[in-house]
């Protein structure tokens, strides 16, 4: 797990992003009906997953695909799995076992059977698929009871009941029947005066599904009466410990409906707290489009906050956690409102872009109605947004939009949907693989500079789930305390790098505390920058210098 230590910098401007798709050998073109825009099913695009499928310390990637023509399952390239070879990728052969022809939405990754090899769950409009990682370089279809046959979007593995096995929550969108729904030209559905596809409003939603991992290779539907009784249009989700009890809750961003926030009740049940917790609507009581979601402690107060992307002519919303899963919309106050109005937001990620020990923000953008561009009203392809957090510079967690100062990678214009966050080249900073609807995916490399040296943490659960999802890590360095939570499913229909990158203002990590999902705590002191492989039982089992 060698990596090149990036030189610390005195923050000479924002890091520069390059488009390295071709250089890295990423070859994927998304097929999703050709961009005609007749149906709402053609709007969501697809995502994918970073995963180290062969546990060689380097990220491989699954890119989920749709079909060239809606409804025709006989043709198409299928999903693409690319294996890493250093900083380059090559397409895996079909024998890897992941190339199903479906109208794919996205993927999430987790070690479902705790065998040390990450498994993959692919969502779709149609049948979802769980694939077991066989540990020999191949995957097998795993009919574990989670297949469904409706419209799934984002999903997350999370150990809800704390039994050490990852359960599965799947966000679902709506009941789709192309023979029942009018198309543009039928005079049925408009956005303004432009005729567009119908939906989601007016169409019947599909209830999200929660599956319990039985620990024996099967899953069972769970809490069916409590989960999503109003059948909202689920798009994105995050597992987030918003009440600081050491166990993650589940936040679901819904399209044109109130969002959901599932937390445990005192008697072991589950309740939706979004309405009363201030995270269901915007701060002025509006339902928003809710397309992507991410979480981090952006203001350093020890509480995990939530950011949700929304529609054009609306703002993306930053919900500040005030404690105990009570949130407040602070978007305008944090400088995030006005810049987002001209764009339609999808995947979003909090991560430390410039290595100054605070959480910055990236948003992938793209319109859903090609008719708007045809009518000369709003562009279909849009640029993405990059914000730097000013917490370390001015002491207040306001955001400054720096996309146009951040190199060609942040100026790319496409109708983007997913963005997968991961340090693909192991150089100590997160890169982004952006998926674009009916277009090629683009790999954006963070070329730095980053301010402080970095510590990479890889966690291995033992009594906790093997993936250690839900673990919380507090790192103190140079008088600054940072709190991170291990989750991979934030963004939109994607699964991200599970390795945690923490930048060290003091040059070393004075103190590290890992709160494992199973309840145990690992404490470390005076760790140098580089890599740490931490086992829940054994502690640090490997260290590598940068």
């Amino acid at each position, binding site marked *: 797990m060698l990596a090149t230590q990036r030189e610390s910098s005195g923050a000479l401007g924002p890091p520069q992003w390059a488009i390295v798709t071709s250089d890295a050998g990423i070859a994927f073109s998304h097929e999703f009906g050709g961009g005609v825009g007749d149906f709402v099913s053609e709007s969501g695009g697809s995502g994918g997953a970073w995963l180290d499928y062969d546990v060689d310390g380097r990220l491989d990637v699954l890119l989920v695909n749709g079909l060239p023509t809606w409804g025709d399952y006989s043709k198409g390239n299928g999903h693409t799995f690319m294996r890493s070879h250093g900083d380059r990728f090559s397409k895996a052969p079909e024998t890897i076992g992941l190339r199903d022809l479906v109208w794919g939405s996205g993927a999430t990754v987790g070690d479902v059977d705790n065998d040390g090899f990450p498994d993959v769950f692919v969502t779709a409009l149609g049948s979802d698929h769980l694939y077991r990682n066989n540990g020999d370089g191949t995957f097998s279809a795993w009919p574990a009871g989670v297949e469904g046959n409706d419209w799934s979007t984002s999903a997350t593995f999370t150990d809800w009941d704390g039994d050490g096995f990852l359960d599965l929550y799947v966000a679902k969108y709506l009941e789709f029947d192309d023979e029942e729904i*009018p198309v543009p030209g039928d*005079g*049925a*559905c*408009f956005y*303004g*005066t*432009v005729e567009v596809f119908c939906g989601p*409003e*007016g169409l019947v939603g599909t209830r999200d599904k929660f599956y319990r991992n039985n620990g024996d290779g099967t899953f069972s539907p769970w809490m069916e009466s409590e989960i999503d009784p109003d059948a909202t249009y689920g798009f994105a989700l995050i597992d987030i410990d918003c009440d600081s009890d050491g166990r993650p809750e589940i936040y679901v961003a819904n399209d044109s409906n*109130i969002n959901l926030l599932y937390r445990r009740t005192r008697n072991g049940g589950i309740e939706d707290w979004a*309405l*009363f917790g*201030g995270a*269901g*609507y915007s*701060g*002025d*009581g509006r*339902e928003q489009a809710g397309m992507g979601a991410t979480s981090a402690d952006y203001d350093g107060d020890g509480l995990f906050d939530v950011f949700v992307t929304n529609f054009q*002519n609306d*703002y993306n919303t930053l919900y500040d956690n005030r404690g105990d899963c*009570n949130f407040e919309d602070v978007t*305008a*106050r*944090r*400088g995030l*409102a*006005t810049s987002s*109005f*001209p764009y339609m937001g999808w995947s979003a990620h909090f991560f430390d872009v410039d290595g100054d020990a605070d959480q910055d923000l990236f948003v992938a953008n793209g319109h859903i109605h090609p008719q708007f561009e045809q*009518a000369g*009203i709003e562009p279909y392809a849009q640029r993405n947004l990059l914000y730097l957090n000013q917490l370390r510079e001015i002491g207040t967690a306001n955001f400054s939009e720096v996309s146009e100062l951040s190199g060609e990678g942040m100026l790319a214009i496409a109708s983007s949907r997913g963005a997968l966050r991961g340090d693909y080249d192991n150089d100590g900073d997160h890169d982004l693989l952006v998926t674009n609807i009916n277009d090629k995916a683009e790999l954006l490399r963070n070329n730095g500079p980053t301010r402080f040296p970095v510590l990479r943490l890889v966690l291995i659960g033992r009594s906790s789930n093997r993936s250690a999802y839900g673990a919380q890590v507090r790192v103190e360095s140079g008088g600054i305390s940072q709190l991170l939570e291990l989750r991979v499913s934030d963004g939109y229909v994607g699964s991200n790098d599970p390795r945690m990158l923490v930048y060290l203002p003091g040059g070393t990590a004075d103190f590290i505390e890992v709160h494992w999902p199973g309840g145990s705590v690992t404490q470390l002191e005076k760790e140098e920058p580089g890599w740490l492989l931490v086992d829940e039982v054994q502690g640090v089992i490997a260290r590598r210098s940068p």
Partner: protein
Amino acid sequence: MEEVVQGATQHLRRGVELLDANQPQAAIAELDQAVTLEPGNPRIRYYLGKALYGTGQYEKALEHLAIGLPVAADPSAFGLIMGQSLIELGRLKEARSALDGAAALRPNYPPIELQLAQICYRAGNVDAALKKLGETAELAPQWTVPRLQAAAIAAEKGDAATAAELYSAALDINGDLPLIWVRLGDNLEANLDYEGAIQAYRSAIETSSGLLAPQLALAYLFFNRQQFDDAATVLAELLQRVPGDPQILLPVGEIQMIEGQHEAALETIQSALRALERAPAATLQQVGAQRDGLMLRALELQAKTLTSLDRVTEAEAAARTLLATNPSNLDGLFVLGTVLLRSGNQEGRDHLSRFQRLSDVREHRELAYDFYRRGRDPERAAAEFEKALAIEPQDAATLTGLGTVHLAQGNAEAAIELLAQAREAGAASVEWYREWVLALHAAERSDEAMQIWQQVQEAGVTLGPRVWAALGKHQGAC
């Protein structure tokens, strides 16, 4: 005798001068004296009739015109004003007769053709009115009025594209009409031609010499397009001209909120509130009483800003003020629920739960209207209204909407039942009265329909061409 005629002539001349100077009331004073001196002079009767028409005294105008008509040198002129007066009195068949007579003497005379178009509109035959206005415009290529009237009718029909074309055509004839530039801009904006709308508003500003409306329209366009910097620039210029105007202060406050300047936003909004409290009370419509929109908006913004500033006690008070006037005010419920919970008061849950229900109702209702009006899909519209009623069975607006859809589908009895329920639930909007009259007429209860229509007319409210056409009061006039 000669002195009498000379005196009458002088009064007549002065009366005509005053009429030309757009002072009909003063003209009447002169012309009254003239007609007393020379009652048989048809010219005096004509100008007096014209002046009386100009001051809305239509019956008196007709009296004088009727006396002068038999001896008039130009009966068509008399016929035109008689026709106009009769239109205003709602006597469309007689108006048609008078104007036909005038047209026979002076065929293809645009002012007469224009009034014939007006009759068609008042009879509810909007398409015929538009056709007639088109013909009139061709007869008078340099006359803006037929194009402007046609544009107004198109806009009323919701056809913003046609309205914009017609306003544009009128402005090609005479570009010095700032308020017409504003209407062009409004219709271009409705048609999503934002660049065109901006240019139109800018032309309005250039030609307006001091009118507020064009700049305000431009500011609101920028604001609605989230071009907040541009909006702020225009609003700042406006505030220099008219400091303290709440129409300007409120969008300034909203922009400040969006930019995170909540303290400044609160100050701005409260300035607007003080200005509104000092202003004379808004006139209520006699049918469907409505609150002053600006005051309501200001109160809602104040409540939201106080919440953002975490001034929970004041926010609670502001929310309660909103709810005191309307217990279903959504902003009031949301703010009150939020701040109560922030203070640890679990009553907040009740308010938020109610907010959620009413918000869902509103969403279903808006979607229903979208399906009905733009999508022309009454079945899906009805389904959405039913979903809203499943949440709030006594929602007046939803009951009215569903009644409207049933009526459109030919189910008058169901419409009447729903509209009656709406009335019991407090419906009193113009829309409700319109649908109620139409439903009664469709259910062959035309006498009742006519009675309601008369009451509404007397209250000074018009129910529009659909009702006029349905009641058939002017059948044959067009």
